[in-house]
């Protein structure tokens, strides 16, 4: 089991502070949902956890490897590399790559026989499964999922969410699940953190945050989320 801990992390781009003194713990084996609007710093925070971006100050610690699944499965797989090779590339040395690729493809419900296919032959949902398999190939203890369903068709999104939940439980992964969609975050997360303008404004167990939001901004987000049985009246 492995925690992912952000301690006083700040990221600045010039004068702009994208992440402002964030301390956040993703508890071992749990899913931390991270919601917030575009520009709130969610993705920048994620990038620091996998080393794609160095924090200006503060530090991040995780016992075990951290892997990431990206938003757009159309750009996160090398179009010139077979999906099997993309997955194998992430494996530690000395792994039986062929067998492991087959196992991982099977794990994400794809036919292992398709390992030699190029990404162009796959649909968006299938590509996102490949991206998940690649993230798992590095045997991570912590996985970061950055808006992984927002580029997918709605009829395909459900299957990917189910898969993420199953895998997380089966493998006991700790997960930081980022999305702007509250309904999606609510569905997969044990705890929810709300980010605004680079800061975490609220964090707590999912049910508590959604039913009894304490920060004004969380209430605003909840009120704005589209609901099926509420008509939106003209302003």
């Amino acid at each position, binding site marked *: 089991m492995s925690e992912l801990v952000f301690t006083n992390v700040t990221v600045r781009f010039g004068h702009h502070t994208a992440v402002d003194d964030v301390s956040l713990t993703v508890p071992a084996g749990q899913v931390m949902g991270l919601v917030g609007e575009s520009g709130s710093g969610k993705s920048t925070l994620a990038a620091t956890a996998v080393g794609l971006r160095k924090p200006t100050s503060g530090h991040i610690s995780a016992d075990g490897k951290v892997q990431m699944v990206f938003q757009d499965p159309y750009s996160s797989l090398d179009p010139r590399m077979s999906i099997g090779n993309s997955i194998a590339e992430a494996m530690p040395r000395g792994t039986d790559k062929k067998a492991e690729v087959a196992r991982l493809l099977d794990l994400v419900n794809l036919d292992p026989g398709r390992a030699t296919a190029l990404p162009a032959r796959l649909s968006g949902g299938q590509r996102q499964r490949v991206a998940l398999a690649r993230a798992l190939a590095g045997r991570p203890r912590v996985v970061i999922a950055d808006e992984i369903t927002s580029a997918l*068709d709605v*009829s395909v999104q459900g299957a990917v969410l189910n898969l993420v939940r199953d895998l997380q439980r089966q493998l006991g992964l700790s997960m930081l699940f980022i999305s*702007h969609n509250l309904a999606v975050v609510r569905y997969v997360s044990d705890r929810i953190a709300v980010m605004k303008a680079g800061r975490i404004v609220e964090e707590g167990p999912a049910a508590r945050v959604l039913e009894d939001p304490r920060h004004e901004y969380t209430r605003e987000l*909840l009120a704005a989320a589209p*609901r*099926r049985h509420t008509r939106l009246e*003209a*302003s």
Partner: protein
Amino acid sequence: MRRLTVLRSPVGAASAVLLTVLLALAVFAPILWGDRAAAIDTDALQQGPSADHLLGTDQLGRDIFFRVLVATRLTIGLALLATMIGVVTGLVLGSVPSVLPRWAGRIVTSAVNIAVAFPGLLLALFFAVIFGTGTIGAVLAIAFAITPSFARLTQTLTASVSGRDFIAAARVCGVGRFRLLTRHVLPNIAEPLVINATLAAGSALTAFAGLSFLGIGVQAPSYDWGRLLGEGLNRIYISPAPALGPAVAVVLAGLAFNLFGEAAAAGHRQRSHRAATPQPKTVGSPADGGLLTVRNLHVTFPGGITPVRGVSFSVHNGEMIGVVGESGSGKSLTALAVSRLVEHPGSVTADTLEFNGKPLDSTPDRELGTRLAMVFQDPTTSFNPTKRIGRQLAEVSEVHQGFDRKAAAAKAVDRLDAVRIPEPERRAKQYPHEFSGGMRQRAMIAMGLMGEPQLVIADEPTTALDVTVQREVLKLLARIREVRSAAVLLISHDITVVAQTCDRVLVMYAGRIVEELPTDELFTAARHPYTTALLKAVPDLDTDRDAPLAVIPGRPPEPGEIGRGCPFAPRCPLADDQCRTEEPELRTLRQDHRVACWKSETELAGVR
């Protein structure tokens, strides 16, 4: 197969044939005619063209025609060698900055940037002087003249690929910089590099001929076309053929390389363009007069791809209609067809396509421009970034309504106010980049309100916006409907958004309307298996967290994949043989509720 596309254009095919001939000559000419080209004939010095010597002879009586043929090998070989050295050096210089430490990379980049500023031929002459006259000197001179532009090209292409997620993904997986370069970056930029190398080979060939002609390239007793040209030129007024022969050879070879490169580049552009063409999307329902009447609308693209296949619906004054569908369903293309915005090579046909009782085809632009407003997904690309917002709005009234500049400007401010943009006078003077996404979308709607729109078509107007902003924009559309009694056609992939705001929903799948029903019945009385599955598959804030989400197996078909039968049949739990062979028409279940499904209502109700 992809590589052959270049051969399909006449220019590509002709230049490919020419190149093949040149390469064959380069290989075989010295073997076949080497002796004849070298044979000295003191009886036939400096002769003009004759049957024995097609291009005449030189001062040692050697046959110039055969010398031109034999020189193909040296000319082309040297040009290719120079190109290869130049391209490889350029590739190395262009890609090392991504592997080197940052400071070292910067030095290389700056050096390349400076070198790019010098004209290639000037560099070649400069290097020729440094390396000394002779073949090796000329090869290096031309190679290093090509290098800077290739280094720059590599840098630019590398930068464009490096920003993509798959590079970040590989880095997260622990792939090293060198492997990143060789396995991920280079394969993805190879195509434009190869094309440019072909073009560079053409220039190298002519540049080399130039150097030899000037006497600083190939030296006797070796000869290439440039040298033959130089020798022939002395006698050009007496006998032009000895000079024209090699000149024609240089021109033909240069053209062959350049045209082949151009044709390959054109093929490449076409492909990338095709790849970038957005997935066609769309809408539909039956028609019985109203503000907008659409009957049996088809949108077709070359190759028999028909993303919209017989869509019928109508919109009445003051109605708010939602069109729901996934990518490829044809919803956006339906909206574009209704606004006459389907671009070539797409073609639109319909039994009826009427706006305000008149065929859309014959509605003057001016009328359409003021009565119909279109709001797109991405407000960033819908405005001209170099013009002030107020000016862009005012232009609508100047062009379509004949307003003078001042009146149009006043109206623009008024409309910005109407969409509740604070301080509209100040905002009107700002540029699009000074607006946030939500404000820009409001300004877009305000632009639609510059006329007196009876119909607002909004294609995914909130998809690019945050939820809190989304709500404001949706409220604004609802308000326009209420205050101006304009009809709104709201296109969205999000069934919840549509359910919240619209009176009626059209559900599209694979280019057709599969269900149409009043929104307040959506969650209780939807019957089409696709609609009901969609409602169950999308989580909302009330979804049971402990149960798995309902899954629709498979994926929506691409417009090119639609065959016989119901397009949803492969994913449908109820599908039987009839579903797989015959496509159901939209039929009326009861007033306001239509379904395209073979199953009876009892069977369908059972699924829920």
